[in-house]
Structure formats: C-alpha cells, structure tokens
C-alpha cells in the first residue's frame, strides 16, 4: 500500500460536480451517490496524476461527504472492477474476453496488446507506465466483436494488426476516433446497412 497517498481532497472541478450529483437523490439518501462520487475521484486522479484510480484516502473522503461508514464505501469500490484501487498506466486497455469476442479473436487482440504495449499479461502495467492491460467480461458490444476498451472509448472489429496500430497511435499521444476500426456504421452489417437503407 506504499503507493497510497496520505490525503485526498476534491479539486474545484470535482466540487462543481458534487452538488449536481447529490441533487439526483432524495434527501437522506445521499449514500446512493457513492458510485458517481467514486467515478469523480477516479477522473480527478486521472487529471492530476495521469493514473485513473481510487486511493483509500479518497474513499474515506467520499464516506465522510456522504455520511456513511468508510467500510460501506470500500465494499462498493472493491465490488466493481471499474474502480482501480491501485495506480494504473495512463491508458487502461480492457480486452473483452467473453464468448462472442473470444470466438471473433479476442485472444489475438490480447496478444497484440501484450506485444505492442510491452505488457506481460492481464493485470500488468507496462514498464514505461503508459499501459495497464485488463481482461474484462462482456462489454455489451458483441455485434462488433472483438472489442477493446481504452479508458472510456470502445474500439471495435479489431484484429492483431489494427490493435497494434491503435496502440502505436496511443503511444504517439494520438486518440484515434472510437468505434469500429473497419469503418462499419454503428452496428450495421459489415459492408453497409441491409435494411432501412433509406433512412
């Protein structure tokens, strides 16, 4: 736990968000805002340190802000894999490994990630601190399998080469447009829509 900072405080940008989030829930039920607030923490950490994660000190701050026991926040934060409880690389590569993606080549995508990003395997961070690779369960984009989620963006219809190209672009500091990497429109059939063509 040596990487844990001693303290955490919401910055002005996060503070501006908190009242809007709390307003979504009825009075006395502020504890419901725990997930949005943890996301807020994670985004702030991305802004401030380049690593989107939730330190323990921040969970305590969230608990205090929502008047709930700290353990209740820890429970939520450890339950959802979307919260990183340890520092991660600048880019979080999340390879979907669930059946449709697996059948469509998720293992190739995983191999490409390891090769191009220099990561030893799932759960690891590259030596240069740029990439953390995670295997995740279904991302809900099965029609355009296989899918790689980079931070909040989905890159779909990947294969080995296109994954390598994507990671090289990220290394150069570029952000290729998210979505299908073969030019597919939304989740239409490959080669263009076959129905509702007039729309």
């Amino acid at each position, binding site marked *: 736990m040596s990487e844990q900072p001693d303290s955490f405080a919401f910055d002005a940008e996060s503070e501006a968000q908190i009242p809007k989030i709390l307003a979504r829930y009825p009075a006395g039920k502020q504890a419901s805002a725990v997930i949005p607030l943890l996301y807020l923490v994670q985004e702030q950490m991305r802004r401030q340190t380049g690593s989107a994660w939730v330190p*323990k000190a921040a969970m305590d701050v969230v608990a205090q802000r929502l008047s709930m*026991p*700290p*353990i*209740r926040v*820890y*429970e939520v934060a*450890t*339950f959802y894999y979307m919260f990183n409880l340890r520092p991660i690389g600048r880019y979080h590569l999340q390879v979907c490994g669930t059946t449709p993606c697996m059948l469509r080549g998720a293992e190739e995508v995983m191999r490409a990630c390891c090769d191009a990003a220099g990561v030893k395997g799932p759960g690891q961070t590259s030596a240069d601190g740029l990439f953390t690779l995670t295997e995740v369960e279904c991302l809900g984009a099965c029609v355009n399998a296989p899918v790689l989620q980079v931070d909040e963006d989905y890159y779909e219809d990947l294969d080995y080469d296109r994954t390598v190209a994507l990671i090289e672009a990220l290394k150069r500091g570029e952000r290729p447009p998210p979505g299908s990497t073969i030019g597919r429109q939304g989740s239409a059939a490959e080669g263009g829509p076959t129905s509702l063509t007039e729309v």
Partner: protein
Amino acid sequence: MAKVIVDGIEVEVPQGASVLQACEAAGKEIPRFCYHERLSVAGNCRMCLVEVEKAPKPVASCAYPVMDGMKVFTDTPMVRNARRGVMEFLLINHPLDCPICDQGGECDLQDQAMAYGRDVSRFTETKRAVKDKYVGPLIKTVMTRCIHCTRCIRFAAEVAGVPDLGATGRGETMEVGTYVEKAIASELSGNLIDICPVGALTSRPYAFTARPWELTKTDSIDVLDATGVPIRIDTRGAEVMRILPRQDDEVNEEWMGDRGRFSFDGLKRRRLDRPWVRRDGRLVPATWGEALEVLARRFRGRVGAVVGDTVDAEAIFALRELMLRLGSPNLDCRQDGAKIDARERAYYVFNSTIAGIEQADRLLIIGSNPRVEAPVINARIRKAVLAGLEVAHVGPPVDLTYPHRRVGLDTDFLEGAARPMVILGRGALARPDGAAVLARAWELARPSAEWNGFNLLHLFGGQVAALDLGFLPGPGGLDLAGMLAGGVDALWLLGADGFDAARIPPGVFVVYQGHHGEAAAARADVILPGAAYTEKDGTWVNTEGRVQQAFAAVVPPGEAREDWKIIRAASAALGVTLPFDTLAELREQHPLFALRGLVRTPLPDSPPGEPGPISDEPFVLPIRNYWQCDPITRASPTMAECARVFAPAAAPALAAE
C-alpha cells in the same frame, strides 16, 4: 394473522412473518446460517430452502413472507435435494479442519453437514484460501472458514453500532473483514464469536484450550456491570475456561459485554488464597485460626464496615447483621460517595426496566456513558433509537453509537413526551451537589403510577443488593467519608477496592475480606481470603432491581472461603455468633432472598434527594477505561491487552511483575 399449513400442521402467524417463522411456530426445524432473529434478514446462505405449494422452485424461507392459506413443506425430496446442493456449495471452499477448529462440537456448519452433507466431496479444483484478519485481541479469525453469512457484518452495524465490518471484493474474491486493518472497537465484540455459525470468528483467549463437550456448565450472573446479564460459566476441573451469555429477553436478549465475557483470566491471578496477618509492620501468611484470633482481639471499639461493588447479597447481609450485633451503625456501600437516596427503592433502581426502554419515546441520559457503563443496555437503547426513540445527553461528549443531542440539565427536551425516560448515571451523584442532581433528574422524569421513567444506572452487580439490604449508615452512623475522617478505630472492608486505601488514617485496624490483593489488601492488618462471583452460590440484584441467583462453578482457590461463611466464623470469634449455619438458614433471615426476578417498585409519594443549586461543574464519567475498572479486570491479562489496544491513554502502565 395468517393461517399457514406447514407439513400438514396449521399455524397462525402475524401478517408479514416469514415462512421460516411459521415453520418454527409449527415446531419444524429449519437449517440456517445467515438468518438470525435479532438481525436484519440477509437471505444469502440459502440453507433454509423449503417448498411452497405452487412455487416453481424452492424458496428461502427466511426472506419469504407468509400468505394466508399458504402450504409449506419442509421435508420433501425437493427440499432435501436443494439443501444438499446448497451445503455442497458452502463446503466447496470450507476447509476440512474441524479437528483443529475451536468451533468443533458447537458448529452450525458441522451439525447441518451431518444432515445435508455428502460423504465425499466432488470438488476436485483447488480450494481458495483467505488471509486471516486482525480484528483485535479478543477475536481470532480463520477467514478461510468463513461462509459469508454476513451475520458479523450485520451485528456490528445494527446492534453494536460500530460499522467496521464489511464484505469486500466479489465472487470468489469476496472477503469479510475491515478492509483497513483495525481492531473492532466495540464493547460487545465478543458476541461476534457467538453469532458466527462457523469457526471463522472464535475466541482468541479460549483458542485451543478446551472442547465444548468436556466442559461443565454452570448458570451464573455477570456482576462486572449492573446489567445482570445471565451467564453460563464453562469450567473444566477447577478452572473457568470461558463465560458465555444465556438468553433473557427482558435483560440481555442474548448479548453480553466483553468485560464480563473475557476478564475471567483475572480470577486466576493476584488471588488472595490464604489468610494474612500484619506482624511488625509486615503482612505474613497465617492460618484461619490465627487470622480470626487477631481479628477478635483487635476489631473492637468504634468499628465500621464498607462493602464493595461486586459482593453477593448473602455476604452483605451477613456483614450487616454482624455489625448490628456489634452495635455499630457505621455502614456504607457507596464507595464512590454517590448521594443515593435509599429511603424508597424507586429512588435507586432502573424503574422503566431494560425492556421498557423500547416503550419510551424520549430519553435523557445524565452524567453517564451507558456504552461503557452497561454496553448491553446501550445496545437496547440503540435498538429503540433505530425504532424512533430520541436521545439527549447531559455530560461530556461521548460516542454512544447512536445520534443524540447534547443539552444541559435545564433542558425542556422531555416536555411533551408521552413516556419520558431519564437514565441517571451513578457517577452523576458522586459529587457534592449529587442530591440536587438526583432531585432534578426525578423532576425531569415526571414519574407517574403508569410510567416511571426515572432510572438510576449503577455500575456493578453488587450495588443494588447492598442498598436493598440497607448497608447504609444507621441512626447516628458514619458514612465512608466520616469513617475515613477518623471516625472509627477498626474498619472491615468487604471487597471494597473502589476507593483510595491511602485515605484510611494510620492507626485504624483494617480487615480486608476479598478475593484480589490490591491496595486495600496491602493496607490491611488482617486479610480474609474470600470467593469471587464464580466461586459461590449467591444472590445478585441488577440495576433494575431484578433478583437473580448464581451458582458456584468452581471452588475458591487455596484456603479462600465463601464470604458469608467467613463472616459467620468471625462472628463466633467476636462473641456475637450469627444465627445461621447454612446458606439456606441465612436466606430465611431476610425477605430479599425469597424473591426471584424483577421486583416491581411502587411509586413513592415524595421525590428523592434535596432540590438545590446545581453547580456548573461538568459531569465526570466514572468509567474511563471500560476494560479495567475492578480488581478482577485489573488482574486480567486479556483486559490489559484490550486497554492497551483500545484505550492507550486511559490504561495504566503495566507494573513490572
């Protein structure tokens, strides 16, 4: 009411009851792990599956509400198969270490696996292992054994009011713990051991010391606070191995404070196990004959007696009779100098009763921290608070585990309350204006014939009996302060360790009768070794005025004797032989001993105390260190460790032994 037919037996249960409760009403035993009648329903162990007519699959009976006319089957092939399946899953990650598990022999999982477990495991993958957690000096954890019933989590959050436990992670990696290592800072933490259905949470002091089937069980009463928790003392041979609470819905439900549960190792240390006599300024071992001879020679002139806080009623009565026969009115049982008004019983007991807390609508606590003075009563207050009771507190800031307002004695908080309740700490009376505080508290409580919400919260199990028996200055008699101011030539201290023995003037002949050698014994001229509460048949009266019977679990060590016998022998030596030779004959001498259970107290016509000015002096809480506040707990290494961990500031530095 809803009519439910369980295995052909028709029972009526209230609307909203669960199927499990209906099954219990029909006398059917439903296996369960996560369900606990005093905790919220979790419904996650799935062991209580039953078949309900027209339901397509087995239902978890603990979380399934009854409906009128529902037909439930608790023992069909479907039910049995379902439970077998659940059991198989529960055992997947449970280690097969029953032979080295302290829960063995009293383990719910072990028992229910006898009924629903397979003879061999079909699980060929590797079992998971979970790192043990440190949760304090009282609870030993073996988290691999945990089946995630979450009883401990719910107990900590709901009853103890210390929400430190939780389930972190998910699925295979779910773990019960505190996430950040910390000792569970609750005075009720020992109950986690009782409610854990498996061997994940066991008693650390009891670890690997005994098996449940080799223990002799004796019913007794916890006297280390004034709640009067009924306990069971488990002994092996002459040794107390552990202390567990019994159930009494009117007193403790089924909880118990840590001090009473874990301090018994103090009964084996620093004991007075033989008489001592001071010769040439030094205490030297003596025989009973020598000790009584010195006593008979020197306990003369202006004599006085003080009883301590955890003495049984029989000994108090015997000493009072002895003092009356010696013609001395100098008696006192208020070592703390509390300005208790004992003219009427209602002035010094917990009139609303512990169960009655749940009927009050507003509660004012004055000069007391019930969390450390009576943790079980505090848990009952917390239960009532969760159901709507409002609480205000007069005194220094304290963490009561439930929300409360801080007010002053001039408060109008109780005005308008239908059932106002005042809990007056005994510590609030131990100050010069105590009588005025008492009068003010009575006035605030507005007792009536229907509802008497005036409650005095005592600190130890022997205090009310001493007041009931009138161990107070007689006509013209001196109180403790008067005796210590040079009013007596000889002083008999019966377990009286609650005041500074250095206040006894030099030259006063001191008889110390008790079980632990502390400052008072060191000051004594004659030491008469007595019995601790586990070692004698005795009567105790709790803060409610509930008369309770305890039985001897072990014999006193060495030459120590039951206290009433010592006093009886001393009376013969002093030439004023008391008229009883057996405990039964002693008990015939006073009506208190014929009483059992709660003794209702009629409302007196006049208020207690003396109305007067109350100083602005803040209240001082009498117990700063929950774990070490009487001779037994001060001698206990377990309690010393607790004090070190939980209250480092309040704990005295360990003396080099």
